[in-house]
């Protein structure tokens, strides 16, 4: 049974290495998905975590000053409907075209100590009902989880 022992050892090493890499990878990149209301519920626990907050852009709240863009996200449904979150976008990518009043947006970033949100990435979708189908993507943004790619498969 000696070869089997050796195999077991090598397999163990391979798996352990990969598990170690995986755990490291998760800790590095994990992002919490929250709605505006859920973020408010988190309170202090939200500090220092990478967050992705989803909500609707409040009409007329988008303000640009130089490279910074600030706006308000509002909770659209549920018990806490109407809760607001002030978001400041400081990323370098141009904002997606779909980012406008009433759009559904995902802000990726951190919560500041004063309760406002600092985003370095914005993803957005039109709230239009007619387009509310799976599989529409805005080019120019990274096709990450916000939108499924147009039905590819």
């Amino acid at each position, binding site marked *: 049974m000696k070869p089997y022992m050796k195999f077991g050892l090598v397999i163990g090493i391979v798996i352990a290495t990969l598990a170690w*890499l995986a755990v490291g990878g998760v800790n590095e990149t994990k992002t919490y998905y929250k709605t505006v209301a859920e973020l408010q519920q988190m309170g202090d626990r939200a500090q220092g975590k990478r967050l992705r907050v989803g909500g609707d852009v409040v009409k007329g709240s988008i303000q640009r000053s130089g490279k910074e863009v600030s706006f308000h996200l509002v909770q659209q449904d549920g018990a806490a409907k109407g809760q607001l979150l002030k978001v400041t976008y400081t990323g370098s990518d141009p904002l997606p075209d779909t980012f406008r009043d009433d759009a559904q947006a995902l802000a990726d970033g951190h919560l500041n100590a004063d309760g406002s949100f600092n985003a370095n990435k914005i993803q957005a979708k039109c709230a239009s009902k007619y387009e509310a189908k799976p599989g529409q993507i805005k080019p120019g943004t990274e096709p990450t989880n916000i939108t499924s790619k147009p039905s590819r*498969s």
Partner: protein
Amino acid sequence: MENVGALSLLLAFCVAIFALFSSIVGAWRKNLFLVAAAQRSVYLVWALITTASGLLLYGLIEGDFRLQYVASHSNKAMPLLYKITAWWGGQEGSLLFWSWILSCYGAVVVFTNRKQFKTIMPWVIGVIMFTQIFFLILNNFVVPPFQLWAIGRGIITLPDGQGLNPLLQTPSMAIHPPMLYLGYVGFIVPFAFAIASLITKQPGDEWIHTTRRWTLVTWLFQTIGITLGMGWAYYVLGWGGYWAWDPVENASVLPWITATAFLHSVMMQEKRGMMKVWNMVLVSATFFLCIFGTMLTRSGLVQSVHAFGISSIGNYFATFLAIGIAATVWLILDRLEFLKSESHLESVVSRESGFLFNNLVLLASCFAVLWGTLFPVISEAVTGEKISVDAPFFNKVNIPIGLFLLFLTGAGPLIAWRRSSPDSLRRNFMWPTIAMFVLMAVLFGAGIRNEYALLSFGLCLFVTATIASEFIKGAIAIAHKESMNVVRATIELTYRNTRRYGGYLVHMGVVVMFVGFTGAAFNKDLIVEASMGKSFNIGRYELKITDIKDGDEENYAWMKAKIDVLVDGQKIDTMEPERRIYKASRQPTSHVDIRRRLNEDLFLNFAAMATQGQGAVIQAYVFPLVSWIWVGFWVVLIGTIICLIPSKIKYSYARTEVVGTTTTNVSKGSHAKT
């Protein structure tokens, strides 16, 4: 017309149920009449689904906007190709397409095997029909493609349709889904044969020999489909990359990984009669991952925060998967004694162990990708918080796995079966290893400090050297014996054992692709907000914006920048990235301009109009070596086709190949291969 379509789908559903039962009862009672009836029914199911599909296509082409599906995926202005593409451009149509391909495969399997495998064929039909019934349930009762507007909406017809999503209106997107579907659906054939041989307690590996070509062909389709998807993401989405590890991509690559593992580990079973249970598990896992992938892309399971149109379709898939997996697991456990291994591992340094590690890391990669994709779902179930992981997680795990696989690609085929002597190891690997370290030292000297990139380039050379040495050794031997020139001898050599040398070629293609992937370590990107006349630098290029225009077409409005590309002050090219906003859907699309060269691509994207003034936001990227990926893909394609050509010498080669093994397979000596 829509009634005829819906009716034929309903009939297909009934006939499929009949086929399932008459096939199983026929096998049970040994009633040949029932079995024959089941076979005919398979053809009938195909004919009925084809009729329904034909009618839907007719509706799409003719623009029958009374139908919801047609109105939301086709319009009058689209060219014919994209009207056809609309068949698989949306939920209802694409599931019908799935069904149709499945029925095609069913009909082909029945037709090609009707005279042989009398005992297992009824069960093969049973498995295929069971799956067919599931998809027909979806087609008939969950997402019917022949819905009219009138139902509850008060609209009878529309003047014009929405049109296909503009992003899908490119040639590669027209063929990408069919390829992927052919690959996904096709895996049902090996799976059905495996299950049928388990049910009937077939001795031996007949199912593997029968389905080897099927496996290879469907694997090829998956490979083509995935690569087309990468190419599409690269030049259509305009975000500057070909792989983002998003759930849809992951769903397509999962079954491909297990299929690749399966292609390798069946060789163990053929040569040494080992890993029989494992192969059963792999072929089943691949099939269920294909179904799972379809579910993932169709149900909005993962993009839950942004799942538009969450449909109940996921539950149907989950039920099907649960039943299928439970039945398969039970069957495998119940038949364990028929799957006993005929020989044992003897040494860590052997071909067997190469395959074993190949399988281990492929499966680890599959697991990691699956885990990462489902992380939001799992974390929500466990902790109540939805947590997602990003591309860096997938890269962190998969890059080392990829490099280890690359190493095995070179080392595995040159290690002997059972055990290898240190002497033969030295003979085979000394020069490739030296070449590898020399290259790494040179690259290090040239200033490359990224460890993974160094290792990857080194290993690429290592594998190339081992493959080349195999070809050269073989070709010289033949050239001597048959007094041919070396080129003819190489062709002769390949022809004598297509499976082995075709396989080497596939490996070579993978190496070329790895060179392309490694280039990503040196990507450069830049975003500038620039107005006319401004210039900026990226890499060795100086880019100068000479013109910014906008305009209006019938279908879309556009903005375009004209950019001169200069190297050392010399103008070498003019590029015109463009951005279009389609009027019907109000959807913007990028028409990136890519200057493709073997050493590097220059990639320009018109990202947006500048927020202030008359400028444009231009994203510029330099992607070193990216073209190697597409070149490598062609090599893989050619290699796989060579594998599919029957070898000139089948029997003698197999025997010389496995000197020293004593299993029954070998005395049968039927299949020569690596």
